[in-house]
C-alpha cells in the first residue's frame, strides 16, 4: 500500500504535514503576541498522524475531531485562511467567528467539527458512518481521540456500538503521553490503548505515530476493511506533542528537557524528509520549494485573518432558533 505512493503523493503528504507545522508554530507565536483569544491547543509534533490518515479520505468521508483539531482540519482539506480567521474570531472564519479554535467545522469538506468536550466525537463519527452505510455508499468515518479521551464513557460506548452495528468507522487514538498534565500511563488502566480493541470485537493496532509511512499503511488496512463493510478498527498512534496542553501551559509535569529533545529526536517532518529523499526519489529541492510555498500560505492566512472584519454584532442572535 505504501508501494503505490507516487512522488506526487509524497509531496502532497509533505505539503500537508508542513502546512500543519507552520500553521501551529505561527499560531503559537501570534498567541504569545496577544493576537489570538481563547483556548488554543496545538497539534505540532503529531502531523504524520492526521496526514497519513487524511490521505485515505475522500471528500465525502467524514472526520470527527477534538480540541486539538487544527491538524485534522488541514488534513481533511479545510481552507487554511478560513481556519486562521476563525481562530482570530473573524467574520471570514470557517464558522464566521462564532466557534473559534475548539469548534472549527466544515461539513462540506467532511470535517464534522473540532470538539470542546473530551469524548464528544466518537458517537458522532458512528452516526456519520451509519449514514454512509444506510445510503449504501462506501463512505467511512474516522474519529481522532486522545489518550485522555480513551477513558471517557462515550468513547467506549461508541466502540461497542460500532461493532454491534458493523459501522465503517475507525477510531484513531493519538496517544501523546498526556491528557492535560496527567500522564497516560497513569490514567489508562491497560498497557496500550490498543489492548482495548478485543473487548470491543475489533482489530487493534499500535502504530508509530511519528512515522508517516506506518500511519499510512495501518490506516489503509482499516479503511479497506471499513469500506468493505467489515466493520470498525482501532488504531493507537504513539506520538508526542511539541507544545503544552494549551497555549500558556507551564509544562512542569514533563521531565526537564523533554520538550526540547522532542523536536530533535522524533520530528515526523525530519524523518519523512530523510526517508523520501533517501529511498523514494524525492529531491531536497522539491521539499524546499514546498517549504517556501507553505511559509507564504501561512503568512497570507495570518494577514487575511488580521485584516478581516469582526462579525456584525447582529450575528449574536443568528444561526439559532430564537423566539425571544
Amino acid at each position: 500500500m505504501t508501494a503505490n505512493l507516487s512522488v506526487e503523493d509524497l509531496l502532497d503528504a509533505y505539503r500537508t504535514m508542513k502546512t500543519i507545522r507552520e500553521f501551529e508554530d505561527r499560531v503559537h507565536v501570534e498567541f504569545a503576541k496577544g493576537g489570538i483569544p481563547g483556548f488554543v491547543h496545538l497539534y505540532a509534533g503529531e502531523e504524520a498522524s492526521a496526514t497519513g490518515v487524511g490521505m485515505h479520505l475522500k471528500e465525502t468521508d467524514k472526520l470527527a475531531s477534538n480540541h486539538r483539531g487544527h491538524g485534522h482540519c488541514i488534513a481533511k482539506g479545510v481552507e487554511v485562511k478560513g481556519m486562521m480567521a476563525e481562530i482570530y474570531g473573524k467574520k471570514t472564519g470557517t464558522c464566521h467567528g462564532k466557534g473559534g479554535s475548539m469548534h472549527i467545522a466544515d461539513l462540506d469538506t467532511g470535517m464534522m467539527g473540532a470538539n470542546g468536550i473530551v469524548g464528544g466525537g466518537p458517537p458522532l463519527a458512528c452516526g456519520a458512518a451509519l449514514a454512509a452505510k444506510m445510503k449504501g455508499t462506501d463512505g467511512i468515518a474516522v474519529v481522532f481521540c486522545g489518550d485522555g479521551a480513551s477513558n471517557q464513557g462515550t468513547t467506549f460506548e461508541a466502540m461497542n456500538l460500532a461493532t454491534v452495528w458493523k459501522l465503517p468507522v475507525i477510531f484513531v487514538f493519538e496517544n501523546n503521553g498526556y491528557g492535560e498534565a496527567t500522564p497516560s500511563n497513569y490514567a489508562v488502566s491497560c498497557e496500550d490503548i490498543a489492548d482495548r480493541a478485543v473487548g470491543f470485537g475489533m482489530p487493534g493496532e499500535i502504530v508509530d505515530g511519528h512515522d508517516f509511512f506506518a500511519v499510512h499503511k495501518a490506516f489503509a488496512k482499516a479503511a479497506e476493511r471499513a469500506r468493505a463493510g467489515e466493520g470498525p478498527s482501532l488504531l493507537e498512534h504513539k506520538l508526542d506533542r511539541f507544545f503544552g496542553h494549551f497555549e500558556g501551559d507551564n509544562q512542569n509535569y514533563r521531565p526537564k528537557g523533554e520538550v526540547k529533545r522532542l523536536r530533535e529526536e522524533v520530528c515526523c517532518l525530519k524523518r519523512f524528509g530523510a526517508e523520501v529523499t533517501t529511498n523514494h526519489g524525492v529531491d531536497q529541492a522539491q521539499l524546499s520549494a514546498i517549504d517556501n510555498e507553505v511559509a507564504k500560505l501561512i503568512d497570507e492566512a495570518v494577514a487575511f485573518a488580521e485584516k478581516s472584519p469582526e462579525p456584525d454584532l447582529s450575528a449574536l442572535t443568528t444561526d439559532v432558533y430564537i423566539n425571544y
Partner: protein
Amino acid sequence: MARKITYQQAINEALDQEMAKDKSVIIMGEDVAGGSGGDGEMDAWGGVLGVTKGLWGKYGDRVMDTPISEAGYVGAAVGAATAGLRPVCELMFIDFMGVCFDQIYNQAAKFRYMFGGKAETPIVIRTMYGAGFRAAAQHSQCLYNMFTAVPGLKVVIPSSPYDVKGLLIQAIRDNDPVIFCEHKVLYTLEGDVPEESYTIPFGEANIVKEGNDVTIVTVGRMVHQAIEAAATLAKEGVSCEVVDLRTTSPLDEETIIESVENTGRLVVVDESTPRCSIATDISAIVAQKAFGSLEAPIEMVTAPHTPVPFNGALEDQYVPSPGRIADAARIVMGYKV
C-alpha cells in the same frame, strides 16, 4: 375524521407515515424492535411500551435496536443527522437524560450556531415523562424544563392523540433537534385522529377552552387536569381559559399574553418541580409583559420540590390535581387589591 385511536397509536402512525414518505427517517433505541439477534421473535417489543411495534416489520434495518448506551446511540443519531439522515431516537425514559445530556445540549443543540450556520441537525428524541405509574424517583420525572432552557433545542409536549400525531410529523420535518416528550399516562388516551398525514406548527399554543375570568396555562398531561378544574369552576361561575402550550420552545408568548390581558388573572400548572421550571418561565414573562393587565398575583401549581415518591398515595399527592388547580384559581379570583 371520526376515527378514534390512542395517543400511542397516533405516534406509531406518525412514524409510519414519515418513514414511508422519507427514506432518510430512521428509528433507533433500546428494544425499539426488540429481540434483535436473538432466537425469539425479532420484532418482539416495539419499545418498552410497544409504541414502535410493527415498524421493524415494515422498514427492517431502518428500525435499529441499540445497546444500553444512551450517549453512544443518541450521539450517533446526532452525527447521522449532520450527515443527511433524519433519526428519530427513543430515550426510553426522560429520566435517563443524565447519561446522554452532553450529546444533546453541547453537541446537537449548538452545532448550527457554533459552526456559523453551517450545520443542520434534524434529530428527534422521543421520550417518556411524568408521574403516575408508581415508577418512583428515577422513572417519573418531567425534566422538560432542562431541555427548554437550552438554546438550540425545540421542546414539544403533546397533550392529545390529535396533537401528538401532527406535532411528531412536524418534529421529524424540522431541521433543528427536537425533544419530544410523551406522557406515559396518556398513551392509552383515545381521541379523533385523521388518517392522513398532517402537521401542527411549533410555537402555536392551543386554547382548549375559552374563558374570561382566569387564564390557566399548562402543557402535556396537565391540560386534562386543568380542563377538569375548569369544569368544576364553571359550576361556581368562574370562567377559565385553558391554554395548552403544545411546545415550550418555541413558546407562544402572544397567546399567553393576549389571554391574560383579557382575563387579568393567571394560574400556571406544571407537573414539574417548582424551581427554574415552565411554571416560573410563564409567570416571569407575564409579570414582565402583561403586568399592567394583572389583577391578582400569579399562582403556580406544581409538584413539590422533592423527588417523586414510590408510594401510590404519596405520588397522587405529588402530582398537581384538578382540586389544587381549582384552589389556585379561587385564590386569584378572591384577591382584593
